[in-house]
C-alpha cells in the first residue's frame, strides 16, 4: 500500500486535522483584533465546514480497507461511527457558540477537532499500539478542554482530577496492552486472540484482562473508576463536559468492545449466576453491576443537575458494559445504537443546562423551576431528553435498552445466563425514573411567580436542542433508520474478514 492510497483512506482524519490548523491560523493571523463573539462564529463555521466535508467524504467514498495490518481499518461500521462522532462534534461546536468563558477561540476549536481526530483514529484501529496513541491524542485534548475556563477554579480542579485519573488509567491500559504483546508477540488484535487461545487462562492473561478493564473503566467512568466524572462534568466548561460525556464515550465504548471481542476472543468466560467461568465476562459483569447500582443511587442525592447527569452517565456506563458483553457473541449493533442515542440525548440535556445556566447562572436543579413557563419549547425538549435517559417509550432510550437487554439475554453459551444482570439493570432503570422525575417536577410542577417577559435564550442553542430532541424522538419511533446501517455493516464486516488478505485470523495461519 503506497502513500497515496493511505492518504485516501485517512483522508477524513486529515481533513479534520487540516481544519484544526486552519481555525488556529485564521484566528491567530486575521481575527485577533475582533470581537470574541464574531471570532466564535467564524471559528465555528470553519470547524463545522471541516467536519461536514470529512463526513461527506466518508459517506461519498465508501472505501473498505485494512492498512498496515490493522493500523487503520476502514469498514462500514467504523465509517458509521466516524460519521456519528463528527455529528456529535458539530453539535458540541454549535453549543459553544453562546459561551463566553474564553478568548482563545482558535485554540479551543482546534483542540475539539484534534480530539475528534483522535477518536476517529481510535475507532478505526485494530492494533493495540495505534489504539493507545489515538486514545492519548483524544485524552490530552480533552484534559485541556476541561481546563479551558481559566477564570474558574472549578474548571481547573475538574481538569486536574480528570488528568490525574486519566494518566493513571493510561498507565493501566498500557500495562495491560504490553502484557498482551508479551503473551502473543503481536500488536494486532486478531493475532493476539489467536495466540492466547487455549485451554484455561494464563495468569498473565488474567492480569492483562484486569489491567485493560481498569484502564478502559476509567475512560468510560465505570464504578469503581468513576471518581473524576462528577467533578469533571460539573466543573469543566459546559461544551467540554458535553463532549466528554458524548463523543468520547461513544468512541471509548466502541474501542472497548472491539478490544474485548477481537483481542480477547475465546477468553470470555461466563458470568452466569450458577455457571461462573473466569474470563473477561465476569470482570465486566461486576463493574457493570456496580456502576448501575452506585450511579443510580448516588444520582438521587444530587442537587446540581450537572452532577446528576454525571451519575446518570455512570449508570449508563453500566448498561453499556452490558452491551459490551452482548457484543461478544453478537454484533456491535445494540451497543452502538445505545451509545450513539445516549450521546445525542446527553448532549441535548447539556444543551438545555447551558441555556438555563446562561439565564440564571446556576446549574442546580432548583434553577430549573418553572422552566415550562419561561421557555416552553426548551422545557419540552428537556422532558424528552430526561425521559429518554430513563427509558420511556417511544423515545430512543427505550428502544436502546430493549435491544441491549434482549441481546444480553441471548449472550453466552447458556441461554438467559445474564438474566440476573438484566434484572438488575431493569430494576435500576426503575430507580432512575425517580430522579429524572424530580427534575421534571421542578420544570413542570413547581410554580414560580410569572415573569413579565419570557426569558430570552440564544436562538442557536435553542435550535440545536430542538434538533437533538427531534433526533431522539425519530430514532425512538423509527429505530430502523439507524439500525439498518448498524446491522448491515455487521454482515458486511463478516464478509470482510472472510477475505483472506484482510483477515487477521487467517493471516496468522
Amino acid at each position, binding site marked *: 500500500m503506497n502513500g497515496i492510497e493511505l492518504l485516501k483512506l485517512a483522508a477524513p482524519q486529515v481533513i479534520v486535522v487540516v481544519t484544526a490548523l486552519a481555525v488556529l491560523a485564521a484566528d491567530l493571523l486575521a481575527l485577533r483584533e475582533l470581537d470574541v463573539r464574531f471570532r466564535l462564529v467564524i471559528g465555528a463555521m470553519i470547524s463545522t465546514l471541516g467536519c461536514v466535508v470529512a463526513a461527506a467524504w466518508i459517506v461519498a467514498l465508501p472505501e473498505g480497507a485494512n492498512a498496515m495490518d490493522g493500523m487503520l481499518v476502514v469498514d462500514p461500521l467504523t465509517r458509521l461511527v466516524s460519521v456519528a462522532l463528527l455529528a456529535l462534534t458539530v453539535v458540541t461546536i454549535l453549543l459553544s457558540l453562546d459561551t463566553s468563558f474564553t478568548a482563545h477561540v482558535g485554540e479551543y476549536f482546534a483542540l475539539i477537532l484534534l480530539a475528534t481526530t483522535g477518536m476517529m483514529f481510535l475507532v478505526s484501529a485494530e492494533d493495540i499500539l495505534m489504539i493507545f496513541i489515538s486514545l492519548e491524542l483524544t485524552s490530552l485534548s480533552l484534559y485541556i478542554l476541561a481546563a479551558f475556563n481559566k477564570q474558574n477554579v472549578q474548571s481547573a480542579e475538574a481538569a486536574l482530577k480528570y488528568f490525574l485519573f486519566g494518566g493513571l488509567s493510561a498507565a493501566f491500559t498500557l500495562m495491560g496492552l504490553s502484557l498482551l504483546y508479551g503473551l502473543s508477540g503481536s500488536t494486532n488484535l486478531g493475532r493476539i486472540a489467536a495466540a492466547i487461545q487455549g485451554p484455561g487462562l494464563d495468569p498473565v492473561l488474567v492480569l492483562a484482562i484486569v489491567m485493560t478493564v481498569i484502564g478502559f473503566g476509567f475512560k468510560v467512568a465505570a464504578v469503581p473508576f468513576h471518581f473524576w466524572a462528577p467533578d469533571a462534568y460539573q466543573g469543566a466548561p459546559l461544551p467540554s463536559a458535553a463532549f466528554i460525556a458524548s463523543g468520547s464515550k461513544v468512541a471509548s465504548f466502541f474501542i472497548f468492545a472491539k478490544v474485548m471481542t477481537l483481542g480477547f476472543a475465546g477468553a470470555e468466560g461466563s458470568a452466569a449466576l450458577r455457571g461462573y467461568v473466569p474470563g473477561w465476562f465476569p470482570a465486566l459483569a461486576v463493574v457493570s453491576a456496580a456502576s448501575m447500582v452506585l450511579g443510580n443511587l448516588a444520582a438521587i442525592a444530587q442537587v446540581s443537575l450537572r452532577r446528576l447527569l454525571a451519575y446518570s452517565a455512570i449508570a449508563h456506563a453500566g448498561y453499556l458494559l452490558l452491551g459490551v458483553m452482548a457484543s461478544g457473541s453478537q454484533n456491535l*449493533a445494540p451497543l452502538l445504537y445505545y451509545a450513539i442515542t445516549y450521546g445525542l440525548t446527553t448532549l441535548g440535556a447539556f444543551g438545555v443546562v447551558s441555556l438555563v445556566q446562561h439565564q440564571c447562572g446556576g446549574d442546580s436543579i432548583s434553577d430549573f423551576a418553572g422552566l*415550562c413557563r419561561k421557555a416552553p419549547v426548551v422545557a419540552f425538549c428537556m422532558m424528552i431528553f430526561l*425521559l429518554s435517559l430513563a427509558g*420511556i*417509550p*417511544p423515545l430512543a432510550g*427505550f*428502544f436502546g435498552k*430493549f*435491544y441491549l*437487554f*434482549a441481546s444480553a*439475554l*441471548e449472550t453466552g453459551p447458556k*441461554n*438467559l445466563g445474564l*438474566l440476573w444482570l*438484566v*434484572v438488575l439493570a*431493569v*430494576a435500576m*432503570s*426503575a430507580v432512575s*425514573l*425517580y430522579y429524572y*422525575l424530580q427534575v421534571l*417536577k421542578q420544570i*413542570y*410542577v413547581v410554580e414560580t411567580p410569572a415573569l413579565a417577559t419570557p426569558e430570552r435564550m440564544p436562538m442557536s442553542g435553542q435550535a440545536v436542542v430542538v434538533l437533538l430532541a427531534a433526533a431522539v424522538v425519530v430514532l425512538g419511533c423509527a*429505530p*430502523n433508520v439507524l*439500525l*439498518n446501517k448498524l*446491522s448491515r455493516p455487521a454482515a458486511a464486516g463478516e464478509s470482510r474478514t472472510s477475505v483472506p488478505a484482510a483477515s487477521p485470523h487467517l493471516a496468522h495461519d
Partner: protein
Amino acid sequence: MLAWTIYSSFIGATVVMLLPRGLTRAARVVALLTAIFGFVIAMAGVMHGRNCSGIEAVVRTDWIPTLGIRYYLAADGISLTLGLLTGLAAIAGILFSWNLEHRAKEFFAFYLGLIGGVYGVFLSFDLFLLFVFYELAIIPKYFLIAIWGSTHKEYGAMKLALYSFVGSAMVLIGLIAAYVVAGARTMDLVELARFHFPYGMQLWAFPLVFVGFGILAGLWPFHTWAPTGHVAAPTAASMLLAGVVMKLGAYGCLRVAMSLFPLGLAAWSRPLAVLAAIGIIYGALVALVQKDFKFVIGYSSVSHMGFVLLGLLTLNTIGLTGAVLQMFSHGIIAGLLFAVVGRMVYDRTHTRDLGELEQMNLSKTIPFAAVILTLASVASMGLPGFSGFVAELQVLIGAWHAFSTLAIVGGIGILLGVAYTLRVLQRAFFGDHQREVPASPVGHAPVELPPISIPERVGAILLIATSVLVGLFPGILMRLITSSFESSLFGWLPKGGGP
C-alpha cells in the same frame, strides 16, 4: 379505522398544546370533540365486532424488521369492550373538568395523551407495541396528579409513577425473556402464545408478568398506590385512574401473562386468587372506616378490582366473562363516584371529611348530586338492574366452580360493600342535620352552593344510563366478550362443557 381512536387522541393532544395561551375554552372544546370522536369510533367498532369472532386485524405492518417487531393493531371482543369504556370515561372526565381554569391547555394535552396510550394498549397485539403504549401512559398520569392534584399531590403522583414503572419493569423482563427464549424473532402475541415455553421458565415468568400488570390493577398487597393516587388526583384524572388505568393492569394480566404462560397460570392461579380475595375483603374493610369521602371510593376500587382479578383466575368462561364485564362496569361506576365526590361535592364544599359533610345537609343544597350518588351507590353495591350485578354475579359463579371457599369470601365482600356504601351515602348526603346549627364550630353552614352545571348533569346521566343499559341488557357486551374466547389466545380455556 379503530386505529384512529389512538391517532385522534394524540392529534388532539398536539392541537391542544399548540393552541395559543389563554384559549381555555377552545382547549376544552377540542378535547371534548376528540373524546367524542374516539368514542364514536369505538362504538362503531363494537357494532362491527358484534358479527365477528376472534381477532380482527386493524393494521399489521413491519415496524422494526431487524428484531421482527411489528406495528400490529387488532381487536377482539375484550379490546372493543374496554375501548368503549375508554371512550365513555374520556368524555365524562372532560365534562367533569369543564370548570378547570388553571393551566387548562396543558391539562387537556396530558389528558388526551393518556387516553391515546390507553386506547393503544387495548388495541395492540404486538407485545413491544403494547408495552410502548403501556409505559407511554405513565408520564401523563404523573403530571396530571402532580400539577392539578390536591392532598399530598406530589407524593401521590410519585408513588403512582414509581409503582407503575416498577410493575412495567417486571413485565419488561418477562417479555424480553419470552422473546429470547422463543427465539423466533417475533413479538407477535398470537405467535408467541403458540410457543410452548419451558415449564421452569413459566413458573417464574408468569408471576413476574402477572404481578407486574397486577400492580396497576390494584392487586393486594401492591395496591397502596391506588388510594393515595386516587385521592391526590384531580377529578378527571381519578376518574380515568379508577375507570380505565386500573383496567390496563387487569387487561395486561389477561392478555399477556395468561396467554403466554398457561402452565404458569395453572400452577399459580390458586395463590393469586387468594390474594385477589384478600384484596376484596381488605379494600372493603378499610373503606368502612375512612373519614375522607374520596378514600372510601379509593379503597372500594381496590375491592372491586379484586373481583376482576378473582374472575380472571377462575379459568372458566363464566368467570372470565364476569371479570371483563366487571372491568367495564366498575370503570363506569367508579368514574361516576369520583365525579360526585371530586367535582360535585369537593369543588363546592372544599372538604371531603365525612364528619363535616354530615353537617352540611347536602341532600337539600345539591339534590341532583344526592340523586346521582344514590344511584351510583346502588349500582356499586351490585343491585340487580345495574351492570355491577351481572358482572359480580358471574364472577362469583365462576369462582364457585373453581374455588368455592373464595366464592364465599367474595360474597362476604359484597355484603361489606353494601355496608360501606350505605355508610358513606348516609353520612355525606343524608346526615343528621338536626344538630347542624348548634354544632357548627366554625359557623360556616354554607347555605348557597353553586348549582350543578349542565356538563356535570350530562356526564352523570351518560354514565348512569350506560350502567343501567348494561345491567338490563348485559347480553350485548357478553356476546362480544365470549366471542373473543374462540381465538387461539384462549387455547388454555376449557372448551364446550363449561359450567
